[in-house]
């Protein structure tokens, strides 16, 4: 294997047009050398269009795409040297596993002996040696996925693009393959970009997540930042579960505060730049806890337990607050034990776990 050093990808203000539709507009995204970045968004947000622009399958009418600092916008798809894995895997059904994996090397005109050697090497690494002579149709979903990945990696591409890499696998296999995919990406140290509509997949695999909606990137950051400190209401709603409570940001004593209406309940806000006016407060269900919280670093509400749903690794409960809203809490097994058969509960929340979104930016 000739060791390539990882290469950066810069997407610079590209816009793509299909007839009258502009699926992406002036989109920029920088991916560091060797980084694994996901584009997460609902279907139709333009994430696949972005991926295909990098692959060379559609042509931005403005902007530039650079790999390792050099523009590739004029290079045709078959000369960009990019490994691509499709959601359907797109394995060639009439070719054996070895022929599928070797296809990229054959197209590069490598001598037969070297092709065989390199195919064998990567099949060994992916525990696929015994399936060499099988056709893709004779493999399980997980094996097909590994073949598709091997085929995309064997020719040492400059960048790896993955289209919903785990979506076609069942739930069980998916969590196993998450670890596997991460391990392989680290081993090959290859700059990787993948698109997903599944927030779990994006959070667990990526170094950074770019959340996209309506052809624009709303937030790009590490998984925990995107989850814990979403910058847009849409991000908060799309990534993970969320409780939203409407109210308004007002001037308080010293710091600003958030006021729920009817009845008016004031919540101190931490330091920061919160625009005054109508806003929504967001709290993650697992950040709410049973029992009171000290007034200095949080607030406590009282309410009635309305419903409980067993999730296996925890309990989800619905609490109707005295102040008239209903919120959802996710309890871990330990907290769950403290609940017993109570119907009146106190729930607490730390100021740190509250996010405020001005209502103007409430996009969707």
């Amino acid at each position, binding site marked *: 294997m000739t060791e390539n050093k990882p290469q950066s990808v810069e997407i610079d203000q590209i816009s793509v047009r299909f007839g009258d539709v502009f699926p992406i507009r002036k989109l920029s995204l920088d991916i560091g050398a060797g980084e694994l970045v996901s584009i997460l968004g609902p279907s139709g947000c333009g994430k696949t269009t972005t991926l295909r622009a990098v692959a060379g399958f559609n042509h931005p009418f403005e902007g530039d795409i650079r790999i390792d600092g050099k523009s590739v916008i004029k290079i045709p798809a*078959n000369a960009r040297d990019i490994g*691509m894995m499709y959601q359907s895997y797109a394995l060639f059904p009439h070719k054996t596993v070895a022929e599928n994996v070797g296809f990229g090397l054959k197209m590069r005109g490598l001598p037969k002996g070297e092709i065989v050697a390199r195919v064998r090497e990567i099949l060994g690494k992916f525990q696929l040696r015994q399936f060499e002579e099988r056709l893709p149709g004779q493999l399980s979903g997980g094996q097909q996925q590994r073949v598709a990945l091997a085929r*995309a990696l064997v020719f040492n591409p400059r960048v790896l693009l993955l289209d919903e890499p785990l979506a076609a696998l069942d739930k069980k296999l998916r969590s196993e393959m998450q670890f596997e995919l991460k391990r392989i990406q680290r081993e090959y140290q290859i700059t990787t970009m993948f698109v997903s509509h599944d927030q779990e997949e994006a959070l667990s695999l990526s170094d950074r997540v770019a959340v996209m909606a309506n052809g624009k990137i709303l937030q790009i950051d590490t998984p925990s930042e995107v989850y814990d400190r979403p910058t847009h209401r849409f991000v908060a709603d799309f990534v993970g579960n969320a409780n939203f409570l409407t109210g308004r940001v007002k001037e308080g004593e010293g710091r600003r505060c958030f006021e729920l209406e009817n009845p008016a309940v004031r919540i101190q806000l931490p330091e920061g730049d919160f625009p005054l006016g109508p806003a929504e407060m967001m709290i993650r269900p697992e950040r709410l806890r049973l029992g009171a919280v000290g007034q200095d670093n949080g607030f406590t509400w009282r309410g009635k337990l309305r419903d409980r749903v067993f999730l296996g690794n925890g309990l989800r409960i619905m609490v109707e607050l005295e102040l008239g809203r209903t919120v959802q809490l996710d309890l871990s097994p330990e907290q769950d034990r403290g609940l017993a058969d109570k119907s009146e509960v106190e729930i607490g929340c730390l100021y740190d776990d509250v996010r405020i979104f001005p209502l103007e930016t409430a996009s969707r």
Partner: protein
Amino acid sequence: MRRDPFLFVSIVVAITVLGFITLPLIIVCLTSFNATTQAVFPPNGWSMRWYANIVSVGVFARPFQVSLALAASCVVVTLTIAVAATLGLTRYSFPGRSAIDAAIMSPLIVPQVITGLAVLLVYASIRGMPLAYLLALHVILTLPYAMRVLLASMARVGGELEEAAISLGASRIKAFFLITLPQIKAGVFAASFFCFVISFDNFTATAFLVNREQTLPVAIYGYILSTSDPTVAAIATLMLGATTALVLLIDRTIGLQRVT
């Protein structure tokens, strides 16, 4: 669901249809072994003489060769055009595409009497080369069938495999020949078969163009007009046998399911 009157009725209908459709064919077979000179049913006795008569009567050999050559050429020409046109129609969208779609399918609904007449008119204005015109006519007639089968196979393959090949470094042409064509192999076989059968059997349109060189169906029709012995039943039985054998062969090798 057992003891369901619907089941009973629909099975009865299905079996009746079966009989209704196959009975005439069985009659043709039986008649071909008839011992008497008149083609009547039921036969008066059994004989193989009409099979011998196909050759000895002498009027079928040349038309058979003509039909065979015509059908074979038609398969080659039609399939070449059809594959290229299918590719254009499935992989690209361009203005006027749907007009071309409609035009390609139109011979399915335009009466063959009209098509035959049309080609006759062209032929009448530029005389000579009768077989070339016959071939053109047959290509027009078979193209829509070939296109239908190929479009259906191509739709199943989709563009993703081809794209995957391109992302692996193949040129568009290599991707088509190495990846897409092998996928639609069954469709190409099926289309070839249909083209051959349609061309070989065609009578309506062909009848307009024939003067010097007769095709087999035209020769058969001409023979029936003058003679009513079971020789044509014998030919029909042979044609039926050959067609059935071909269908079985396709079923064994690529599977009828993937074809129709």
